[in-house]
């Protein structure tokens, strides 16, 4: 029984060992699986971490790019505003004054300065210092004076100079940083086409503003804009000065001409006064001469021998000629001095021309001249009837005088801009071109065989011109020797107020 129990116990123990071994083996397997799982999880986490590293690096690059892009966009906006601002001035002195601290800050810098280079004196002069106290500006000027050759090279090479890329600061970079009171700086040449050149320096100590090539480009654009603004200002100044000189000359000439005109007017007035006075003085004795010659010719003082009569008739005729001349002179003088008032009324030009022709009908008939007057549908002129009659008498008598037998004289009125144009044409000998310009001068007579044989004062056309001008009209002549002459004048048209 004890043996059985012992055997059973041994068998049980053996079974338990087997079971335990199986369980243990299973547990070991599970632990191994879990170990593998943990290992896989660790691997996954590490893989995830590696991926995270890639994401972070890419994100960092993107952020930096974005930051630079933002900076550039802000800088470009600032540059646009600044460019607009500096281009508004055309005063070279004002160009740098248009740049304000806020503009420089918007560009991402804290300080800025600008210098001009005097090639002759080989020295720089400070034009602008933003963000510097007086001491700082003096320090800048000293540094620039000390490093003038290196800085002049920036201008001659037309290339910017900056601390960018200088991993270890050289002596110049260190000195520049000290003088500019900043960690980072860019110096860009200002290169207007003409005039003084110079440089613009911008600087910053901000840790947010690590400089890059984009900043260099931005500052180069700004320096270029300043150069252009200076160039525009200089061009404007030159143009302005030239214009000022021109205006001064024009003023001087105008003054001279005005003085000359005043002198001419004085002279003309004196001449008119003289003619008027002399004419008045001449008229009295002429009236006496005419009177006495008429009495003698009438025979009231007794019969006169034929030879004396002949002389007396000549005296009479010459007196009449002289009286007409004196009257014409007086009329010219009166019109010029404005003493004659034109009594303007509606005047039929056709009737007036025909009336004048009628007065000359004997001469017209004697030379068998064909006279015509055309003014159909033309409104009446607004003029002094008596004066216009004188105009026609003068022009027609001239035409008759110079038109050969069987010639033609025509008067024609047409509508013209703002008035009426009258043409008095003849088929006479014509007037040489060189004489046409002087035709309306007083006492001028064309040098031709007809004039030599016919008496005249040379005052008729001068008087006609004064009368037409007193009516605010114009008179001119068109003529060709051998082809006749046309005198044309304008008069205002009568407009019925109703």
């Amino acid at each position, binding site marked *: 029984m004890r043996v059985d129990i012992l055997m059973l116990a041994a068998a049980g123990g053996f079974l338990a060992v087997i079971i335990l071994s199986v369980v243990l083996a299973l547990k070991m397997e599970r632990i191994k699986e879990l170990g593998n799982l943990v290992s896989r999880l660790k691997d996954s986490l590490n893989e995830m*971490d590696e991926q*995270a590293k890639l*994401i*972070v690096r890419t*994100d960092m690059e993107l*952020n930096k790019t974005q*930051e630079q892009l933002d900076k550039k966009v802000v800088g470009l906006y600032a540059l646009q505003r600044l460019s607009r601002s500096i281009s508004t001035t055309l005063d070279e002195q004002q160009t740098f004054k248009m740049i304000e601290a806020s503009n420089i800050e918007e560009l991402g810098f804290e300080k800025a300065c600008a210098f001009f280079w005097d090639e002759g004196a080989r020295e720089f002069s400070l034009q602008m210092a933003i963000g510097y106290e007086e001491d700082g500006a003096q320090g800048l000027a000293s540094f620039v004076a000390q490093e003038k050759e290196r800085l002049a090279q920036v201008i001659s090479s037309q290339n910017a100079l900056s601390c960018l890329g200088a991993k270890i600061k050289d002596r110049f970079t260190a000195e520049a940083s000290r003088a500019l009171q900043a960690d980072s700086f860019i110096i860009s040449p200002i290169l207007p086409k003409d005039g003084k050149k110079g440089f613009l320096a911008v600087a910053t100590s901000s840790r*947010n503003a690590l400089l890059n090539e984009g900043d260099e480009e931005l500052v180069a654009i700004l320096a270029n804009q300043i150069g252009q603004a200076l160039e525009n200002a200089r061009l404007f100044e030159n143009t302005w000065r030239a214009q000022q000189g021109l205006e001064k000359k024009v003023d001087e000439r105008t003054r001279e001409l005005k003085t000359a005109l005043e002198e001419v007017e004085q002279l003309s007035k004196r001449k008119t006064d003289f003619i008027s006075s002399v004419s008045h003085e001449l008229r009295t004795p002429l009236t006496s001469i005419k009177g006495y010659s008429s009495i003698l010719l009438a025979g009231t003082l007794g019969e006169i021998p034929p030879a004396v009569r002949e002389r007396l008739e000549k005296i009479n005729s010459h007196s009449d000629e002289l009286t007409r001349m004196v009257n014409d002179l007086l009329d010219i003088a009166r019109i010029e001095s404005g003493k004659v008032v034109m009594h303007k009324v509606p005047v039929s030009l056709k009737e007036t021309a025909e009336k004048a022709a009628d007065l000359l009908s004997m001469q017209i008939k004697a030379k068998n001249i064909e006279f015509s007057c055309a003014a159909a549908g033309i409104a009446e002129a607004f003029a002094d009837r008596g004066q216009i009659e004188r105009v026609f008498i003068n022009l027609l008598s001239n035409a008759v005088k110079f038109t050969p037998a069987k010639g033609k004289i025509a008067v024609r009125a047409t509508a013209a801009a703002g008035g009426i144009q009258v043409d008095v044409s003849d088929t006479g000998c014509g007037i040489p071109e060189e004489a046409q310009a002087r035709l309306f001068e007083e006492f001028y007579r064309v040098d031709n065989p007809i004039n030599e044989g016919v008496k005249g004062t040379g005052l008729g056309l001068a008087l006609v011109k004064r009368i037409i001008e007193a009516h605010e009209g114009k008179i001119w002549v068109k003529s060709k020797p051998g082809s006749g002459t046309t005198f044309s004048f304008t008069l205002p048209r009568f407009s019925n107020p109703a």
Partner: protein
Amino acid sequence: MGISVGIGIGTLKDPYQAVQAALKQAKAKLGPAQASLAIAFSTEKFFHLHLFKTISSFLPETPLLGYSGTAVYATEGIFSDGIAIMLLGLPENAYFNLGYVEEINAASGGACGEELGARLIYGFKNIRRDLGIIFSDGILRKADEFLRGLQQRIGLSFPLIGACALDNPQAAKPSIYYGQRLLNNAACGLVLGGKISFGLGSSHGWKPLGKPRQITRSLGNIVYEIDGEPASRVYEGYFSCGIDKLRQDLQTISVFYPIGIHLTAEKEYLLRNLAAVQDDGSLLFQGNVLQQSQIRLMIGTKESCLEAIRNAAETAKRGLGSRGAKFVLVFDSVSRYMLLGRSRQAALQALRDAFGPQAQIFGLCTYAEIAPLTALGNKGRAYFHNQTATIAAIGE
């Protein structure tokens, strides 16, 4: 009668004219109500003692608190140069108290926090405390102790929000104006109480990337070892570079790739910006990183940043309930400002969309933010945050 508020913004080139313009706008928006309190946020360019004294001279009876940041937020926009002034007219049943503490880096963090807390709750006996707002210009090496001391004194029953400077030599130091003078190495704040209704939201939008790691050795804000290796190896590995290159790219790395500390039950990781890489391979972070913390490298995008501010605004709006927001107070991280770049106005639009046109907006772009964590287990404890947008919507 509820809270009255008037917020004005001045961006004119002449700071004095800018201040006057901002003040004029704020007064006009405030209407007939008396300003009980004035807060001015400005960029550094506009932060001058005389400018703040100018504001005080226009409001001789009104306490004024001033703080600076990289940009100011106003209803009209986000401005990298300007001053925003908020005039707050509080109803009779609302209270506030101001306080400050100096030499915050010389004394123990906890003691400083307690001292400020004692000043802030002075006179608040039997009055419900609603919201605390804290500003600090100092580099708080014992930041967590400071907040712990502060909350120990004022209690954990109400949230603390605010802005501060932390240990980053890259970042500009903010300035504080308090009690007619500029404070240095100081913290100040105010506690609002009585019957102020508000909603809070806070979010950053950064997402974890790569495998989780453990802080194996750290002290305060210095991390010596991660996964048993010198801490810098993590960043060196991710960016495939040495310490020198890390230092060179520190600004970008700090803004875009903080570490995130995993906090149980929190929806988002608590972010810590890299402030410096030291020669021994240790890393200096903005804010404490506890030993044994589980961390991940974090990555953010413009869209995730915008989504975060939308989420924060929605949370704040939910907290406010059915009441509309009278004004929205924003502390938005400079890192987010830089990441968003030219899209940053979209962040403001998200606030406008969430709170509607009647809610005025007043805020600052900050170097580090103070805000509570959201999980119940954290019991309202405030933390220093990086890269975070904190939004407080103050109700009608």
